[in-house]
Structures are given as C-alpha cells and as structure tokens.
C-alpha cells in the first residue's frame, strides 16, 4: 500500500478512477450502502470497505482490476458472503469486488456432463438446472442454497458427500477469470488435463488471493437412481468410531457417513423432531447411493458391519421422505445450535478418523476447562469435525474463553495428525493456527507462491498466510500463559 494521508481523499481518488470504467450505480461508497459488505458469515469480524463495486461484464471486471492495480488498491472478491472464516472480510482501504451480478448459467452440456456457469451462480442452482438431464453437481456444502460457485472455488468447498464424490477441486474442469492487473486467464480446460504445471489446485482453495474467478466449468454426474440411509445408534463414541473404520475396512465407500454426539442429537431432535435415538451416545448416518441393485447389496453389507460393530439400534430408510428426515437433523445442526445458545462458534478441523474418540474426550475436558458447552457433528467418512462451541457474546469473558477453546481444538487436531481447516478455509479466523501447523519456511513458500500470481499482494491481502510477526506474537502469548502445546515445533 502506498501512504494514505486521509481515508476520504483515498476514497475520492479510487471512486474517481472507478467511475471511468464502471457505471455510477455499480459503485457504492457511502457507509449506509457498503454496510452489508462489512463482514461475511463470520460476523464477529467487521471492517468497512473503502468502496464496493458490482460489475456485470468481464470487461468491467478487467477494467476495475486494472484501475485498482494502477492505484495499488487492495481487491477482495466476494460471492454470496456465506464464508465462515472471514475470507471476504473487507480491507479498510480496499475495494470489495462483488460478483453477485455474474449469475447466469452459460451452458449445460448433457453429453459432455459439464456446466459452464458464471461465478455468482448458486451451488444448488447448478444441480437444479442439470436435473432436467438426470445430472447434478456433487459437492454440497451445507450453505448450498445460497453460496456461489465462485466462492466454492475460492474455498475448495466440500459437503457431506466428499468421501465418494470429492471436493470442489475434483469437480471443476476449468476456471476463467483475471489476474490482479486485469489480464484474462484460464486455468484447466474442457479436457481432463491442460498442458504445463497443474495450477488448478493452487487456484481452487486460494481464498481469492491468486486471481479473480468469473466463470467456471464444472463436472456433472448422473443422479443416482436411488439413495438409502441407515441410522445406527451406539452406546459409546469409541464403538461408533470403530464402526466407521469397519465399514471402510470392508471396502465400502458410503455416499455419506456422518456422526453426531449425544448432545448434538438432543439439540437437533428438539429442532426437527426426526425421532432420533436420544439414549445413544453417538448416532451414525450411513448412506448408499447408485442403482437399485447396488444400493440393495451395499445397504445389506453396511447393516451387517454396523451390527457387528455393536450398533444398539439400526434403522434403514424406507423411502425418500424418511431418508430426508434422517438427514434433517444433521443438515440443521447449525441452526439448531443457535436455538439452544445465544451464540455458537463453528470449528472445522480434520483429524485421522481413528483419533475421533480421543478428540471427543479431549473436547469433553476442554468443556470443563473453559466452562463452555460444545456439541459435535462429524463428517466421519473424511475425518472433518465441526464442534460447535456454545457461548453468549454479551458476556465478554465467554467470547474470550470460546476463542481459547477453539484454538485448543485446532491445535489438538494438528497434534493428532490433522489440519486446522477441513473445508471452511483459513481466512482471518485461523491465521494464528497456521503458525502452529506450518513452519516459517513453509509459510515463506506460501508467500512466494502468492507473489508468483500477485507480486504486490493486492488480492485479499492479510488472509491465509500469517506474517512472521503475528506468529511470533502468537508464540509468545502461548508461552506466557504457560500452555505451549507443542514443545517440539520450531517457534520464534
């Protein structure tokens, strides 16, 4: 950033430059107009942006980027703002580039099983448009009704069907967009690979820090003819965890495999009345999809494995209504938690599946230590854990304890061989945890990758990669409190 004597002057300069490339109504800068853009779904963090722009053509996006690049203004691309880690948090001297107007489905090609969609198209809208051809877009983050494909690309979003169908990265063929200076760029192709280095894995999940996405070609897959779900109860979390391992050891890859602990089950039952087993210490939802023959065979094998693994109750969905009822609680875990607590913080770490019971026991102890309740849902198939820490933001001390609780969960996940974020992204929320998971040279390598795309660090600056200074401060804080979690990790 160049020096700014006054925010107002800077704003006037930027607005004047943008007015040469955008119609007036596409530029918002009055506080009351930009207020809705001050945060994403991580509402605890807020910043008023300098300017918000809403271009509706690729030429306007290119010109906006070029203008901002000339003035060295930070740019933060934004989709629906449903992100949970503050990835779309504005920069106080930066421009929010909203892609909301890029909401057209350009083409659906049923023979190629692809859809070309603009970045602002909602995840679910793709599957709705593809349904006419018996196809759908597999990744299904729980915010799929609202979140956009551009945001999914930025976050490499997952969902409950990742184990069998993969993440966003595995379902995207081509990303079209612009470099920070407005140069058009395409990553991937309509074929299954493209020449040169495979840049798609960098771009997908880059949290808007490498390029701005305007159009995406996604893979569509045939809609399974049938899906059935088993709801299994267990007396203790250990046996539920062992049951997950047994299913996989038997060579079965379920379409969905989800676990809820007892506290979560009670919480969602009150919310959806799905007749969950409230006596169970843990509930597993295990789904099979495919042709009727396939599903029949697989459900039989799943039932057998789950029974052997000690399930105390097994129920197989009879029809689609019942299957959706089984899922209703899991899909409403977050809003249901909102019903039993004024606030909750959703964590998103991944651990090796076999460490689940250990992790849940650690969380139990943390509830005592931080004097806060926590309910747990777990994408058991892929090890992605979403503990929801319940707190009351009006009690300043609770917010603080909640943050410590969260950091403790993330660091425990790293210690158990996992990662600080499975699918919600680092954004601003997990910057400190990145200091724990990555060494200084690894973080320096991330920054060097960033510079290969964006040498001036104008795209979404301050996200994902913590500064050396920040990590040093975070390290000190931990030593100071006498709870340095990993003595073996390099710190400085």
């Amino acid at each position, binding site marked *: 950033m160049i020096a700014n004597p006054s925010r107002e002057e800077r704003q006037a300069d930027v607005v004047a430059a943008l007015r040469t490339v955008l119609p007036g109504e596409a530029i918002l800068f009055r506080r009351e107009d930009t207020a809705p853009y001050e945060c994403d779904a991580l509402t605890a963090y807020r910043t008023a942006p300098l300017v918000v722009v809403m271009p509706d053509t690729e030429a306007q996006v290119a010109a906006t980027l070029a203008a901002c690049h000339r003035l060295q203004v930070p740019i933060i691309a934004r989709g629906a703002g449903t992100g949970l880690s503050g990835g779309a948090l504005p920069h106080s001297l930066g421009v929010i580039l909203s892609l909301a107007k890029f909401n057209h489905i350009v083409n659906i090609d049923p023979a190629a099983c692809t859809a070309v969609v603009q970045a602002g198209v909602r995840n679910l809208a793709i599957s709705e448009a593809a349904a006419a051809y018996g196809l759908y877009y597999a990744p299904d983050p729980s915010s799929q009704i609202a979140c956009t494909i551009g945001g999914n690309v930025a976050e490499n979003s997952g969902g409950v069907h990742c184990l069998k169908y993969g993440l966003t*990265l595995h379902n995207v063929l081509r990303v079209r967009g612009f470099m920070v200076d407005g140069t058009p760029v395409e990553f991937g192709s309509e074929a299954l690979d493209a*020449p040169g280095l495979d840049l798609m894995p*960098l771009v997908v999940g880059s949290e808007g820090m490498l390029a701005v996405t305007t159009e995406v070609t996604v893979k569509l897959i045939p809609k399974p003819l049938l899906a059935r779900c088993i709801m299994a109860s267990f007396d203790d979390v250990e046996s539920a965890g062992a049951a997950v391992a047994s299913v996989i050891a038997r060579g079965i890859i379920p379409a969905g495999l989800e676990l809820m602990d007892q506290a979560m089950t009670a919480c969602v039952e009150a919310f959806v009345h799905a007749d969950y087993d409230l006596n169970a210490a843990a509930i597993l939802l295990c789904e099979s999809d495919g042709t009727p023959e396939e599903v029949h065979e697989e459900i039989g094998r799943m039932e057998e494995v789950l029974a052997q693994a000690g399930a105390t109750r097994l129920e197989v969905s009879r029809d689609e209504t019942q299957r959706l009822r089984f899922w209703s609680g899991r899909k409403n875990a977050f809003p249901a938690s909102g019903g039993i607590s004024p606030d909750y913080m959703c964590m998103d770490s991944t651990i090796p599946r*076999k460490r689940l019971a250990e992790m849940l026991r650690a969380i139990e102890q943390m509830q005592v230590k931080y004097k806060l309740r926590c309910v747990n849902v777990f994408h058991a198939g892929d090890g992605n854990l979403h503990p929801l820490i319940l707190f009351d933001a009006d009690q300043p001390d609770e917010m603080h304890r909640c943050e410590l609780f969260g950091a403790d969960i993330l660091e425990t996940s790293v210690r158990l061989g996992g990662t600080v974020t499975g699918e919600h992204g680092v954004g601003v929320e997990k910057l400190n945890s990145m200091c724990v998971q990555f060494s200084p040279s690894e973080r320096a390598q991330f920054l060097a990758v960033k510079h290969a795309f964006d040498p001036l660090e104008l795209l979404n600056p301050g996200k994902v990669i913590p500064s050396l200074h920040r990590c040093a401060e975070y390290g000190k804080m931990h030593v100071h409190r006498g709870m340095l979690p990993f003595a073996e990790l390099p710190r400085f």
Partner: protein
Amino acid sequence: MIKRQDPVLASIIERVQAASSRQAPLEIRGGGTKRFYGESPSGEPLDVSGLAGISSYEPTELVVTARAGTPLADLEAALETQGQCLPFEPPRFAAGGTVGGMVAAGLSGPARANVGSVRDHVLGLTLLNGHAEILTFGGQVTKNVAGYDVSRLIAGSWGVLGIVCEVSLKVMPVAAAGATLSFEWDETEALAQLNRWASQPLPITASSWHDGRLHLRLGGARAAVSAACAKLGGVRLDPEEAQCWWSGVRDHTQDFFLLTEAGLARGECLWRLSLPATAAPIALPGRQFIEWHGAERWWRSTAESSEVRRVAAAAGGHATLVRGADKSGGAFAPVSDVLMRIHRGLKQAFDPAGIFNPGRLYAGL
C-alpha cells in the same frame, strides 16, 4: 514424516546445497522409466531411489504414506494385501518405476476419467525445494484447506519445482466385481455411445476403442455389474483376457504403443491428445487408440507437430508428443503468455537457482 536427519535425505540435501551454490543443474532420478517422456533430461543425475520405504499404511483411513524412491510395484503389492489399490492406475512403462516418479510425472491410466487423476489422490507431500528446505504441505486427511494446495501442484510438475521426498496418497478398495464387454463399432458410433453412457448411472470404470472395437470395463458392487452387463449387451471377455487387455492399455505394452526403430526413422510419432470427451472424430494420418470415453486419443502418426497441435487445439484440447525421434516442436503444448508468466514466477518461488530438472517441462523453466 521424513526428517532432515535421515542419512539418505541428508546426503541429497548436501547435493542440492552444492548444486545451488554452483547453479549446476540436477536431473532428479528415481527408476528412470519415464526419461523418454517430455523434454530431454539434462544435468548431473541425482539418484533419489535410496529414499525408499512405506512410512505408514492405514487401510481403514484409506491412506498410504511412502517415500519417493519406493518402487511402485512394492506399493501396489502392499495395497493388494488389504484389498486396496491406487485407483488411478498409474502407467508402468517398465519395471522399476517409483512412487516419486509417478507423482512427478502425474500420469494416470485407464480409470482416470471415472476416478480422477494422480493429482486428485495426493493428500500431502514433503518437498525439498531449491533452498534445500524440507517443506510439508497437505497431510494424511482428505479434507484439508489450510494454505495453498502445493502438494497437488507438484503432481505432474516433472521435478522442476523440487524433489518429492515423501507422499501421502488416498487409496481405494478394489471393486468387488468387474466385467469387460466388447462391441464391434466404428469410431463415430463408439464415441456417440460412450457420450450417451457417460450421463447414465452405470458402473463404468474404463473404455478403449481401437481398430473397430470398443472395450468397456465395469466395476463395482456385484449386483450393479451384472445388471449393467444385462442392460448393455456386447460380448463379455473372459476375466484373464480382460485383465491382459487393460494392463496392456495401462502400461503401453500393447502393439499399438510400441513404435519400431523403422517407424521412428520414417518420422512416426506417438501423440497423446487430451480433448473434451465429446470432441468429434479427429482426422490425422495414421492410427488411433481412444481412452477415457473419448477424452484421451492416442495417435501414431507422421503428421507435422504443428498440424497435430492445431487439430488438438481446434478440438478444445492439447497434444503431447510422447514418443518420436524429433521433439524439436516441443514435447508439451505451449501455454498462454499469462500462464507462462506464472510458471516462471513459481519456478523462481521454489527453485530460484534453476537447478531442478531444467528444461524438462519447458525451455527456460
């Protein structure tokens, strides 16, 4: 995870430090089974095959971690004992290929169109960069979005960014049942049928078309495979014959892929065209072998490099010159200026002294 102090790694680090200070290029070498692929290797050979062994294997986690020099055959044998496999079927052009070479080359076999590529199955990786730093990206879990996905960038990078030391891969169970059907169809009919099947919920795992015959491989639950066989018709191959067919496709041991000295001398080349599966039949002189339901089309042709590249680009894809006497037209299709700028930036980011496999992917990289 592998540590700096490991004696084999320590000696490799020393070589990298020395090469870096002298700016002397290194040719990273594992089994040497893919030296023919891509641009010609150059630089002092740096043998990394000593960095061998399976570090951990957790069948119920569907994850295996192996050092780069581990023979691919050893890894596959270990997975087989647990009824699991590398579902993307990496080609074994000769015996002795390594896990690191598999990742660096990023090549996938017949099942790729249905199950994904090598890159898709990389979960994490430990890399030695040009600063002789040991860096670990990703991990051993499927869902992981902490930081840029550098481990998957390394897949298919032909060693130009660094030395793969160890890699964690997602593995999958071997399908409970399988069958291969064959159909006598010309190219147009075969492609049309493959495109139609692609949008139907069928347990298809691979296809190949050559010389008027389509082979279709099915895999999955027993009931699903037998129902699909009944629905699709065709002639069912005997299991041994099927196995032989697909390993020939996977490892390029079938006659089609074996170029003779005489053929090479008269300018015959083996081209790999990666195209949208729905691309119309390609017109080039020579013979063709189609995989990936139309998305991968191999050509044995004497056509000029520029002509093959033009045809591939017009069809929405790109062409790689896999085997040929004259690679002066480039082994890999060129990328756009903006992408080349990023390539150079990444080379600078990982290997500023330019010591790792220079020119193996593109000149100047």
